[in-house]
């Protein structure tokens, strides 16, 4: 029972590569930039260029492309839904290529659907790629550092980052625990994937009650452990590994900016 096999997002792959060694701030900024650019791109050529760019980064980071593509799986149905909706109920007018009663499929709508689908895939892949090459601790460190200027306007940067670290840290733990409890209940004859929706919802009670009990117990233990080590927020806290920007970060950011500009500059076509 590998129940959560499909879950790639948020799964750090600890290998050593120049991409992994980049400062987390660089990776976060690059991702945010790419996400922004993806919404601005108007042509297939731009998407193709960004796809090639992402594939290149994955290659350098030694992340298998097939593994990366698995990140789409949880969103598969959303993707299908969005594309189908666009194909059949897109803008009226254009060149019809098929017709079922009142429903007309036009060439323009098919092209649009392909474009949106592709863009959605790239949105997911770029964030997935970032989580694959950035450890959760680095990620939140980077985020905290990036949010620090906002502290002056009252954004609790440290606390947000700490909450995020804890949440990320406990995702795998809770998944593991959920799997264990699920198996324990299955050993007692429980079924989780059979019957009507109502039956299945009821079948979750023996899983959710123990999971919540244990999550609360863990939260309690964690709070005590943090207080025992004199945690009192970010005030005056020093770091074991301070973040440092290197030449490679500047180069990486320049490359991302270059790719973004190139993707945006292509004349609108298709």
């Amino acid at each position, binding site marked *: 029972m590998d129940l959560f096999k499909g879950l790639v997002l948020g799964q750090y792959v600890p290998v050593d590569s120049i991409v992994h060694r980049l400062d987390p701030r660089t990776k976060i900024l690059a991702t945010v930039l790419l996400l922004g650019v993806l919404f601005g791109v108007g042509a297939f050529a731009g998407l193709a260029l960004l796809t090639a760019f992402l594939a290149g980064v994955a290659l350098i980071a030694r992340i298998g492309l097939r593994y990366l593509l698995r990140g789409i799986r949880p969103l598969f149905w959303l993707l299908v839904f969005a594309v189908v909706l666009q194909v059949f109920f897109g803008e009226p007018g254009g060149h019809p290529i098929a017709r079922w009663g009142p429903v007309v499929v036009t060439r323009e709508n098919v092209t649009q659907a392909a474009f949106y689908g592709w863009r959605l895939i790239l949105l997911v892949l770029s964030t997935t790629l970032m989580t694959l090459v950035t450890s959760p601790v680095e990620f939140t460190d980077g985020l905290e550092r990036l949010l620090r200027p906002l502290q002056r306007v009252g954004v609790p940067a440290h606390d947000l980052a700490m909450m995020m670290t804890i949440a990320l840290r406990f995702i795998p733990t809770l998944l593991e625990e959920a799997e264990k409890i699920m*198996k*324990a209940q*299955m050993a007692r004859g*429980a079924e989780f994937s059979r019957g009507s929706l109502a039956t299945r919802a009821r079948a979750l009670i*023996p899983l959710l009650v*123990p999971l919540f009990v244990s999550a609360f117990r863990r939260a309690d233990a964690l709070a005590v452990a943090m207080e025992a080590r004199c945690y009192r927020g970010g005030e005056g806290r020093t770091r074991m590994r301070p973040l440092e920007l290197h030449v490679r970060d500047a180069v990486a950011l320049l490359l991302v900016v270059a790719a973004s500009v190139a993707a945006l500059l292509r004349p609108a076509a298709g």
Partner: protein
Amino acid sequence: MIRCEHLTYIYGRGTPLAVQALTDVSLEIGAGEIVGVIGATGSGKSTLIQHMNGLLRPASGRVLLDDVDINASRVDRRRIRQQIGLLFQYPEQQLFEETVLADVAFGPRNLGLTEEEARARAHRALEQVGLPPDRFGSRSPFDLSGGEMRRAAIAGVLAMEPRMVILDEPTAGLDPVGRRDLLDHVRRLHHDRGLTVVLITHSMDAVAQLCERLLVLDRGRLVADGATRTVFADVARLTALGLGLPQVTRLAHRLRERGLPVRADLLTIEEARVAIREALAVRGRGPL
């Protein structure tokens, strides 16, 4: 009754994090046996036993219950799980119902028994683990002590009325009294009711006292399978595998080093008492 043939299992197959957890494990456990499974942390003990009731499917190899492949498509997995009861580590985490009785009856209810029959089974199972149902049945499982919760969870598996129970570290985290109580109950289930028992544990003392046969796992391979006494005789090998000896056996070795000719393969305190007396008699009650 249960036979594993060339089991191999890989966690996270097809991802960069793949780990081979079992390699070519073959073994057979007969009805009425009480078998211990030992091995260092990460040696594949828990992975192995999850194959025995179909919670994990082997990457290659087969698991046969009474000569029927339990992973065959037409086999009802629920029936397998009824026959092979499996108790995970820290099983008190699986408790969820409002009362102890309802929780223990969860398994029987899943088997499609009537509410009455499920409750009757829950009653019997609670008796078997020493939690009188009239005192404990109506309490919330979350109000019990650690040891009581553990026993309630065991009752939850026994209520399925399995032919074989697999216990994964049933004494972990219990105090000495709780530990002894629990092992006593396991012994009684085996002796009085003829239940087949597979016991995973880090306690060499527990397996020495309870198990007739030992399976030793090392990094996913079965490296020893034999009578408890024979397995503990190979001290050098056990040490190399990161495992120890039962305290009584260790004592026997120490005494021999000091020149007292006791047998080296002692397993229980009673055996040791007899052997040390005999050895002392032979030596004419000289000082050690």
